[in-house]
């Protein structure tokens, strides 16, 4: 018997399942799981703590930081409906707000899908990593700052019309975004194509800025940073994109013998690019790759049945900077390459659940707090408006209460939809949730409005309130319905005009209903116009159901020319009508504007005896309906009357007609005295006509009267 000896078997080394029994070192392992390896020590690895669960989905396909926003984008997949949804994760890593459904995948697509995304310049570009082009969905751009998710558009075929691009993957490289696997709209299936965006413009791709990598039809699987270049990995070989800008970019071979098995099976650590090839893990520093996997003896007996649960090409890799390890994950099983001490050592790792993706959050950026409360509307009220300015609209006052939780910086959005045909939901305003009320402009009068409220935080709402195409689908407790009114209608005529030989009328300028913002929007509003020749004692419908625009013409008929009439108007909406708006008595005189100029009275403030006179001047007669008129002789008459604009109704008699010779353009004229109404002003009206009228057929040989007025008091 010999002496007793003691020999140490330190635990800092990794797996070695490949070396022969005679040469394997005593500090190496045939099985080693769930450890961090350091120099001469193994430590039980730490765990995975649940940070959040999205409100929908069965797999969290990926998490990508949007560093410029301090947020992250996450993508989930639901096996039940094959929907792929986008979520925004706040920088606390505890809140996921639903953004939109990116795709509903074809049942024949690779399921569960793979998604590759990259953030660049505060945008997240999201690609469907589907090898078959016909099953691949459009690439999307999520811009949190703009609150938009839109397809990535480009005109690679130079048709003049940008179309949606279907990259198989995207990655950020230097100041660029690269996308691969898509040719042009004319020849989409070019999986060997690598396109490069404009510098600093990740969504702007020029058609000519691309490379064809390797053999045509041999797809690019993935890319990654490698020794100062961009490794471009195919299944069985690889290339690299060298250079730093458009002038220096070029494609060179990287490793003609080894490629990458799956699109996400890679991780870059400094200049080293670690990837999983057809034969196992390898790494490159910019040249032909080196084998890493021999200690694992992957061709030998599997260390555990769990290893086979996920196909190798569906795995993914990530670098854990804290523990200096590259982890190749295949469901619940992982191969861990420990780099802490400079040596590359392997161990296995088992997870409590299947993992499908990895990413990083940058905690401490902008904050999105969970939205726990929701708004419930109170008693909505219609607030009419005075139509002083063209942009003055009536409003609905919408109060709300905060239900189900507390609010901090949430805002309350008020969405409305009129029952008018063609009206769609739109956001009418955003207010602090703590305001508890909002006064929101509306455009439809005597109409029913649907109202929906929601709370948003940094632009994101709770899932139930996320569909902005149909706020009517939000929870019913946050909705209301209310009818608008609109009792104020004003009507300003631009004066009576001649429409044609046989008809005269006026152009209405209705303020209020039908005049939102001063535009000519056509609403479900009709107007009823009535006319009275007896100062409002009896009314006759002039028009009814007039679908009035801002400047609608209303005919009164030629027979009413130079008669005094009174008009009234009301607006009718689907759920009510306005009060009547009534004009003073008006002289229906279409061709009187500006021709006859009346001077002031020669007895200011004088009696109503008719002793005063006014100087009248005029020019050559205007054309009437295109007929030039002779320059006289002229008939002139005058009268006094109450000022209609101050409510007066009494009208004095006309004077006898005074004849003025041809070519003369001035005279003086007195009007008979009259007994005016008390408390109203007095007006002097003079009229002039051509009594050798060149009339069209059907009219007399005198022209219509031209009116001139001046207020004496």
């Amino acid at each position, binding site marked *: 018997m*010999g002496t007793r*000896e*003691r*020999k*140490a*078997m*330190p*635990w*800092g080394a990794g797996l*070695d399942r490949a*070396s022969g*029994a*005679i*040469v*394997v*070192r*005593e*500090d190496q*392992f*045939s*099985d*080693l*799981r*769930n*450890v961090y390896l350091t120099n*001469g020590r193994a*430590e*039980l690895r*730490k*765990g*995975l*703590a*649940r*940070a*959040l669960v999205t409100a929908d989905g*069965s*797999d969290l396909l990926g*998490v990508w930081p949007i560093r410029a926003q*301090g947020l992250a984008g*996450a993508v989930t997949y639901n096996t039940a409906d094959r929907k792929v949804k986008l979520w925004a994760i706040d920088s606390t*890593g505890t809140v*996921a707000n639903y953004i939109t459904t990116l795709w509903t995948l074809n049942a024949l697509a690779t399921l569960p899908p793979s998604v590759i995304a990259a953030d660049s310049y505060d945008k997240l570009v999201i690609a469907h990593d589907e090898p078959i082009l016909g099953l691949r969905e459009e690439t999307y751009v999520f811009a949190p700052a703009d609150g938009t998710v839109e397809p990535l558009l480009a005109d690679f075929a130079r048709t003049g019309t940008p179309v949606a691009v279907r990259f198989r993957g995207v990655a950020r490289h230097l100041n660029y975004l690269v996308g691969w696997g898509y040719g042009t709209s004319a020849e989409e299936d070019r999986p060997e194509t690598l396109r490069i965006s404009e510098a600093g413009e990740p969504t702007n791709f020029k058609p000519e800025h691309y490379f064809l990598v390797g053999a045509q039809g041999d797809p690019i699987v993935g890319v990654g940073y490698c020794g100062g270049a961009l490794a471009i990995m195919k299944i069985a070989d690889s290339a690299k994109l060298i250079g730093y800008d458009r002038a220096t970019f070029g494609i060179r071979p990287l490793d003609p013998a080894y490629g990458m098995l799956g699109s996400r099976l890679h991780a870059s650590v400094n200049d080293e690019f670690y990837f999983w090839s057809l034969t196992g893990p390898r790494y490159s520093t910019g040249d032909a790759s080196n084998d890493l996997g021999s200690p694992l003896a992957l061709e030998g007996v599997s260390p555990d049945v769990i290893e086979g649960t996920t196909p190798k090409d569906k795995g993914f890799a*990530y670098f*854990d*900077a*804290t523990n200096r390890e590259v982890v190749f994950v295949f469901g619940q099983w992982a191969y861990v390459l420990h780099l802490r001490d400079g040596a590359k050592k392997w161990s296995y790792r*088992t997870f*409590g*659940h*299947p*993992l*499908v*993706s*990895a*990413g*990083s*959050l*940058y*905690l*401490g950026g902008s904050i999105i707090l969970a939205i726990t409360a929701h708004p419930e509307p109170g008693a909505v009220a219609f607030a009419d408006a005075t139509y002083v300015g063209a942009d003055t609209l009536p409003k609905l006052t919408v109060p709300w209460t905060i239900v189900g939780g507390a609010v901090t910086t949430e805002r309350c959005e008020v969405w409305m939809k009129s029952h008018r045909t063609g009206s769609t939901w739109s956001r009418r305003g955003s207010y602090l949730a703590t305001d508890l009320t909002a006064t929101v402009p509306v455009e439809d009068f005597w109409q029913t409005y649907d109202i929906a409220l929601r709370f948003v935080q940094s632009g994101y709402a709770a899932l139930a309130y996320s569909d902005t195409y149909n706020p009517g689908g939000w929870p019913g407790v946050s909705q209301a319905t209310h009818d608008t009114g609109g009792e104020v209608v004003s009507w300003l005529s631009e004066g009576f005009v001649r429409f044609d030989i046989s008809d005269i009328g006026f152009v209405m300028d209705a303020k209020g209903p039908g005049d939102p913002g001063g535009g000519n929007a056509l609403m479900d509003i009709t107007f009823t116009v009535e006319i009275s020749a007896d100062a409002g004692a009896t009314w006759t419908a002039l028009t009814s159901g007039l679908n009035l625009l801002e400047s609608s013409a209303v005919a009164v008929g030629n027979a009413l020319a130079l008669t005094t009439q009174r008009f009234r108007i009301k607006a009718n909406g689907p759920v009510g009508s306005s009060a009547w708006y009534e004009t003073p008595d008006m002289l229906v005189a279409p061709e009187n504007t500006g021709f006859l100029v009346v001077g002031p009275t020669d007895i200011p403030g004088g009696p109503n005896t008719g002793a005063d006179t006014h100087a009248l001047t005029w020019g050559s007669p205007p054309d009437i309906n295109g007929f030039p008129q002779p320059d006289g002789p002229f008939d002139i008459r005058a009268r006094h009357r109450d000022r209609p604009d101050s409510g007066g109704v009494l009208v004095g008699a006309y004077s006898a007609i005074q004849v003025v010779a041809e070519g003369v353009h001035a005279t003086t004229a007195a009007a008979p005295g009259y007994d005016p109404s008390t408390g109203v002003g007095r007006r002097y009206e003079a009229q002039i006509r051509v009594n050798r009228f060149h009339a069209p057929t059907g009219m007399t040989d005198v022209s219509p009267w031209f009116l001139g007025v001046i207020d004496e008091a």
Partner: protein
Amino acid sequence: MITPQLVVGRGGGVPAMLAVGVGYEDDDVAYELLGRSAAWAPAGTGGECAFHSLYVTTRHFEDDVSLFVTTYIDGVPLPEVARITLVGVPLSMGEQQVHEIALSLPYAPAGVELLRYAPRGTWIIVQIETKIVDGFGTAAKQMVDGVECEYEVVQETKVNV
């Protein structure tokens, strides 16, 4: 302050985001440490040893942990699986310990140990693992520095490596 946090996405029906490196469970599911050394022949591949003892060096922290040590001689596990119970100590301190595990067995007729005999063989494999037993789980910070094996060469190898 911006602090990167590595996260992983869970599949299998629960779209959860899991923070990496937090606690000692995987989203409420325990996992176990396992280390099985490569087969080692102290006396060479043709030699033979009597294996007397193992000395397991550990460092552990706050919570209680059980380590189970299984020794294989020529691929056959010894019937006795040693259990090392590490009682928690404050996290900031940790506690370094060396645990002696006797591989030799007593010969004690009538309750009186007359002699001890050690297992003999060429190859030795040491396996250390945690198990969830008797309330002692894996949820604790723990380190294994290594194992020392005390043996006696019975026959040297004739193989010259």
